[in-house]
Every structure is written in structure tokens, then in C-alpha cells.
């Protein structure tokens, strides 16, 4: 079953403070080899929330979306908040979703968090949102929000693949959307590396990530009745740029279709990468398919195919 829904408006917020990987490595006690590896995978700069809370960042992203979209807060049916880090919510027993809804006057919105797929959570939530639209004919608009801030500098490193940046994003998903229509969404979860920093990063996992990314892109294209080569734009997560080139090469997709203009400038903004890219990419062609992709440490991947 399907519902004609799409991401009609997107916005994001990045904290003002920009830092570079070299000064980060000096402060966090990482080696020159670590810096060289980060630069090799495409990272130069990242954003630092510098103590700003995720609630504040999420609200700034939502505020930007409301201003650009003209959304009437009392017409929102649901808000889903996504994040990677356990601390990117309100501490129990408080509820960040309720704080956000009350702050913006989302008085009729159901609100909850969708998480634990790490950085794939935001795109993973699209599968649930699609189901909600199919099952609930009265549902008109859902606000999908993502935010994370890494409070400990030394923990920003995502071994071998990138550097975690801070920021937030918001996307309005509406029924009968004329733009960015959701054609297909696919998710993959291996359960490997669920232990996060407590576990061992094994080399075979990198191979699995490559294979799952390749498989997921091929499958989501197939769901949409397309060959992978028909995808005109790939909006990637900001991890391991050379691996992206290998994945696209293996699928026969031209490297030029990968959107990388902000890749080295903002690093990996956890769940927000796909929405930041959708907002920043101005070369999207009308009615052409584009792919959003996210990967989460812990063996999670999500891919969404949109029609611009």
C-alpha cells in the first residue's frame, strides 16, 4: 500500500562555532595519523555546539522550517523526534517532544521519539511515517526532527570513517505533496556492533557496511521500478567519502551525482545529514529521482528514494 506523501519543506540549524580537525585532534589527544585518516575520508571542519543544548538546536531548526514554510502550528498532526546519542533528549522523567510541542503550539500533534538506529534513525522513521499516512486517512502533516550534540570532544571520532558534528534538522512531510515525493524507503539492521563504543570495531564490519549500502540502494531503486543508474542525485551521509565512490562505482552510478559540496565543511551531523543535503543541494532536477542515505554505527542503514 502507498500514500502520496513528500518532504515539502526542510530546514536545519548548525551551531556557529566552526572547528577544524587538526585543532580538534590536538585538543582531544589524537595523533597526526588520525588527522590524516580523517582528511583522507573527506573531513576538514565540523560544528561544535559548545554547550548549546539539543533542545535549543532542534527548536532553531523547527523555527526556521516554520518561517520558511508558513506552517500553522495547530495544523500539525504529529511530530517525531530522532537522534543518535542517548543524551540528545530531555533527561527522564521529562519529555523533549512535549517541551517542543508546547513551545511551538503544536496542540493537536501526537509526539514521540524514534531512535536507536543511531544515525540512520531519521530516515528509518520515514518507514513508520509512511505507514501512519497509509493507515490514517485523516493524517495531513508530520514534522520529522533530528538533533544531536556530542558533549565530549574526544568521542567525536567515528573510527576510520569520520567526525561527528553537532546540529539539528527538520522536515515537513505532507500528504499530496507536489515535491520530494517519497517513492520508496528501505531499512537494514544487522544488530552487529550494538555495543557502540564498548565493542570492538572489527574490520569485517566495514565490508558489511559497503555490501549493505550497495544492496540497499539497489533494492530501493528496484522498489521504485528503477535501475540504480536512473538515480540523478545521491545525498549521502558524511562518512567515508572514498567508500561512497566505491559504492557508486560498483552500481554504475557516475561519481558526479554524489552531492559533496558541504561534505568536508560540516562533517557528519549524525541523523541530520540527509535533510541538510536536501536543503543545500540546489541542482536537483524537477521530477527526477534522488536518493537520501544514512548509516548508523551499530549496523543500521536506511535509504529513501524521492521524486523531486
Amino acid at each position, binding site marked *: 500500500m502507498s500514500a502520496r506523501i513528500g518532504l515539502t519543506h526542510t530546514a536545519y540549524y548548525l551551531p556557529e562555532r566552526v572547528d577544524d580537525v587538526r585543532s580538534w585532534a590536538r585538543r582531544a589527544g589524537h595523533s597526526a595519523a588520525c588527522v590524516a585518516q580523517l582528511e583522507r575520508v573527506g573531513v576538514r571542519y565540523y560544528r561544535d555546539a559548545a554547550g548549546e543544548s539539543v533542545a535549543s538546536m532542534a527548536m532553531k531548526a523547527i523555527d526556521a522550517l516554520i518561517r520558511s514554510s508558513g506552517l500553522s502550528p495547530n495544523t500539525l498532526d504529529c511530530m517525531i523526534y530522532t537522534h543518535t546519542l542517548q543524551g540528545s533528549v530531555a*533527561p*527522564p522523567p*521529562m519529555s523533549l517532544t512535549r517541551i517542543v510541542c508546547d513551545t511551538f503550539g503544536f496542540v493537536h500533534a501526537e509526539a514521540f*521519539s524514534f531512535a536507536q538506529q543511531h544515525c540512520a534513525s531519521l530516515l528509518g522513521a520515514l*518507514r513508520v511515517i509512511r*505507514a501512519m499516512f497509509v493507515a490514517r486517512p485523516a493524517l495531513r502533516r508530520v514534522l520529522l526532527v533530528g538533533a544531536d550534540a556530542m558533549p565530549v570532544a574526544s568521542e567525536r571520532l567515528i573510527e576510520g570513517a569520520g567526525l561527528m558534528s553537532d546540529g539539528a534538522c527538520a522536515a515537513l512531510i505532507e500528504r499530496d505533496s507536489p515535491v520530494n515525493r517519497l517513492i520508496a524507503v528501505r531499512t537494514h539492521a544487522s*544488530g552487529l556492533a550494538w555495543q557502540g563504543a564498548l565493542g570492538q570495531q572489527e574490520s569485517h564490519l566495514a565490508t558489511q557496511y559497503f555490501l549493505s549500502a550497495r544492496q540497499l540502494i539497489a533494492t530501493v531503486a528496484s522498489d521504485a521500478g528503477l535501475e540504480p543508474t536512473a538515480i540523478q542525485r545521491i545525498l549521502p551521509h558524511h562518512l567515508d567519502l572514498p567508500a561512497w565512490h566505491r559504492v557508486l562505482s560498483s552500481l554504475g552510478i557516475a561519481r558526479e551525482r554524489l552531492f559533496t559540496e558541504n561534505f568536508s565543511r560540516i562533517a557528519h551531523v549524525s541523523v541530520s545529514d540527509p535533510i541538510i543535503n536536501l536543503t543545500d543541494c540546489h541542482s536537483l532536477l524537477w521530477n527526477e529521482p534522488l536518493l537520501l542515505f544514512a548509516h548508523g554505527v551499530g549496523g543500521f542503514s536506511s535509504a529513501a528514494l524521492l521524486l523531486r
Partner: protein
Amino acid sequence: MSAPVVTAVAAYVPPALPLAQWSQIEHTLNATVLTGWARLVYPYWFAAYGRDLPQPSMPLDDTPSASWPAAAAGIAVETGIGFVPVEKNDDLSGLATDVAQTICAARAPEAPRIDVVMFCHSSLNEHVSTTTAGRLRAAIGEPCFPFSIAQQQGASVFTALRLAKDLFVAEPELRVILIVAAEKWCHPFARRIGRWTLQGDAAGAILLERDSPATHSRGLQLLDTAVQPLCRADAPFGLPASLIDTNAIFAPALLALIDALLRRHGRRAGEISAVIAHQVNRPLVEAVSRQLGLPRERHLEDRRAYLGAAESIVRLAETLDMCTLEHGALVLAWGVGLGGYVGCSLLEACGKPAVCLSDASPTGQ
């Protein structure tokens, strides 16, 4: 599409401590200096939301000089809570995984695979980078779609039930959904919320299957679920410490939601055979039952601490373990999210789900 069916329920409640004993432990914990990640992060995290770390566990405002046993006795009198289940061995993701595996182990080899796993919780796992949803996926050992639903605390399970119903409608190939809920409270997160409630550790899991001739007679049909936030004007973000004031906010919201759900299905409160209530505190349960006109024997009553997101599933397992529901019996489940949510579900007995209950806690019935 007909409603999905709850075909299996598993629950685990660890051994419980008397409230006075827990209060002494809490006193010691509050004097414990945080280390590592917790020291670096938690004070700033709490401060960003206008809270000091130890605040919820400090002696009650109006009894600052009272001894801890005396303060505990005061809470017990007001809330009716006398025992606190405390898990000493497993972490949060371990509790969740154990009940999920209990359900899986009891399934027939030819049973269809679990397609979706939802994890509901309020408390945090011991390390911030772990993912319980990922661990559940690893434990199940088959491809599935695992994720967590949270920020609604105890009401998360009701949202999970709603989403499960949506997924069954939207994805025709989907056959089985597992909902797991668990809580384990570790320092510096407070078990006690003012004078309103005290939280214990536990885990529960329910298996929902698409309605079919094979599943229909094996469980409880999920008729409908509703969840809604409290109005901010009634309940500001920081919960009031007073039990009477807080109950006065939650009880009318619960009653309105339950009434709306019953009316939507053309049912009356008098038709309800069993109530799966969140035992946040005894006066709240009694107020809701009284207003609905339901006699006490329709719900379980004991002195165990509130089990948060796990409460509904544990209480359902206990009810099914103790009672025989006749075919067609109507079951009402209701609950709250401490951050300001209320939720309820209506279920109808078409058979008895498989039940596996491991409860080591004295309940003081």
C-alpha cells in the same frame, strides 16, 4: 483489516527491596561522586533543562529534617508503594533481551519470523553509545526492523501499539511485531518523582500477530489505542511534587481519553472485564476506577513500585496468569507518561496468549 492479535506475553520483575531499605540505598547513592562520562556530561545535561542532578531524590521539601526511614514511610502512606524491584545483575538492554528471547524460545519452529521490533523505555542504558534495539535484533538473529519509541515514558507502549497497527495496515507482507519494554534505574537518575511515585526495574514483551485463522483463537485482539499529551496549562514541564495536585491533572485526562475510546467502539465502562492499570500511585488508580464505575476486583492491587514503560506488559502478564478471560471479554489498559502523556488501549479476548511470567518481587497484596 481486522485488528492484530496479542499471542504471547513475557514479563520479568527482579527481586524487590522494602521501601525503607531502598531509601537508605538512595541516600548513599546520592552521596556518590559521578565518574567518567556521567561526570563530564550529566550535570550539564540536567542543567540545560533547568534541573540539578540530585533534586528528584533529595529529602522531601516539607520534611527536610526527617530521617530517611520516616520519609520513606511518608511516601508509602501516600502512594501505597512499599516494595521496589531492583535489578542487580543485568543492564537495561540485557533485561530487554531476556524477555524477547523468552518469547522467541516459546515459538514453534515453523512460526513466521518477527518483522518489526519496538523497544519502549524511560531509563537509559548504561553506556550512551549502545543500542538496545540493535541488541534485540542481534538476539533475534533474523532480519527485522528494530527501533525505539520513547520520550513518552510509560505511554510509549501505547504509541508502539498504535504504530504496530499502522504497520500491519500499510505493509501487507508483515506478519509479526514484537514490542519490548524495560526499565532499569541507575544513579544519578531518580527512581522517586517527588511525592507522586517511585519507580522499579522490570521488563516485558508482547508478540502481536496479524489476525488469521491460525492466530485468532490464540490471544487478545487489539481493538484500538489512543495516546495524547497533557495540556501545558494544566501540567508544566517540571512535574509538581504533590501527589494530589499531579493526580488532579492526570486523572481527568485519562478519563476523557478512555471515555472517547469506549464511545468510538460503542462500548460502556460496565462491559470491561479487566483493567490493566498503571499503578503510579494507589490514589490515581482508585480515582480512575471510581470515576469509571469499575469495582476494585477488575484490576490487580499491590504495593509494588511503578514499572514505567514495562508496567502495562507486566500487569497484563500477571492478569492473564491469574485470571481466565472469557471469549469476548473486554480488557482496558491505561497508563501515563510521567513527562505529560496519557494512553489507553481496548483489547478483546478471543483466546489466551502464551504467558511467561517471572516475578521475584513480593508485592504486598
